């Protein structure tokens, strides 16, 4: 019974990956439209507060320079499973307020 459950987990996992990769292509147009719009910084502050604070105390924008935030946000994109758009929004907010 347990083996069957894990078999299901494996199949479900593979399906999930495939779905995400395929869905991302369909989502690309929307993402392109969102990339550099005027609301980016406003979305960024929201994403920063919601995602970063769910694990640790919020680190203020002034702690680092623009180039440092670029690397740190990429690191956190992996660590916190941020979407690419969330990472860009957060980076924009941090770079505008440091």
């Amino acid at each position: 019974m347990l083996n069957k459950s894990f078999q299901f987990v494996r199949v479900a996992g593979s399906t999930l990956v495939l779905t995400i990769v395929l869905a991302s292509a369909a989502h690309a147009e929307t993402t392109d439209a969102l990339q550099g719009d005027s609301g980016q910084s406003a979305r960024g502050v929201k994403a920063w507060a919601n995602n970063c604070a769910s694990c640790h105390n919020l680190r203020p924008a002034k702690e680092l320079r623009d180039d440092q935030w670029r690397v740190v946000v990429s690191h956190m994109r992996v660590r916190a499973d941020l979407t690419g758009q969330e990472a860009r929004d957060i980076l924009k907010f941090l770079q505008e307020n440091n």
Partner: protein
Amino acid sequence: MQYLTNKTLPLAAAISGIIALSSSAYADSESQSLQSEVQMLRKEVAELRALIKEQSSAQEEVKNLRNEVKATSHAQSEWTNADSTFHLSGYAAAGYTDRKQSGGSAFNVASFNPIFNFLYRDIVLAEAELEVATAADGSTETKLEYGSIDIFLNDYATLVAGKFLSPLGHFRQNAHPAWINKFPSLPPGFGEDQAAPAAEVGLGVRGGYPFGQDMKMKYALYAGNGPELEVDAGEIHGIKSDGFARDVDRRKVLGGRVSLVPLPKFEIGLSGASGGVGLANEPDRSYRAIGTDIGYQWKNLDLRAEYISQKVGDQEASAAPLGGTWKAWYGQAAYRFLPSKWEGVLRYGKYESPRDSQRQKQWAVGVNYLWGPSVMAKLGYEFNRGLAGQEADANRWLLQLAYGF
């Protein structure tokens, strides 16, 4: 006629003389006026020359300033626009543990964990964390916590290859750094070789996918070499899951975590893994891991709970034939007394192991003082219940300084 001539000649001569004299005077005056005009013009020309000279030197100055601004702007944009860039972050901790009941109090924590990050455009990130710590005997322990190459495939998927923190559960991969962990110690069962897997060597894909305005799904799936067993005197003492660059049981472990964020600051996750584990030169045995975690932040309150278990199957042909299940869970509440710099923490945890001496129940209460978001002092007290006479049964005070940089 003669009369006229005699009368007019002197007159004419006189008139001529007057005219000659007056024209001579006029000529002199005109010459002077012209000379003064020439002098004025010369002066004006000299002034104009000086002005032109001044202007051209000002233009030169402007040109130089423009070049300087251009160079400064270029130097500035080099930092932000370079294709390849680097950043060093990390954390450090120092601590004291008072465990009079088990006979030893000591300054027993001195660790430094640098994290190296190299980014090439928005394509690839190479990241590595080292743990450099002082051991009880004074030697220096160095460990690669993780070292991976992460390729951003698209907005929703990142390929992770190398050694990475185990994606199973939340605490080990997200909350273990000293400046993030709210309490000076790890929850029971979440330490080294206990119930929660620490790291894995392999390949994985992870990311997040938004649903509507505030909902989101996160996932992390992987295939790796899996853990190994720690065996002594015919018994399994623990599951070593620090990540191995070998696979002694020759059977890979597949696993992952899927979580849902239905509301901002609320996340619920499920983890599972399956594969083989064993000892060198022995047949492999089954390995299963399962877990769930939940986290919620509301104003100054931070709530978190997690359950994780690892099960190892029996193997008659092994030096340690009996398998077992190692499981642990904890619940934690932390509250920031804003606007002050104080934070209170309460945690309950339980660790169950096939070995009686490892079992532990724990209430932990602590208070933290934060000089900054990542600089803090943590004081805590653990009420521990374990097998009588064992270390797991001893209450203890803990003091820790932590700095995330």
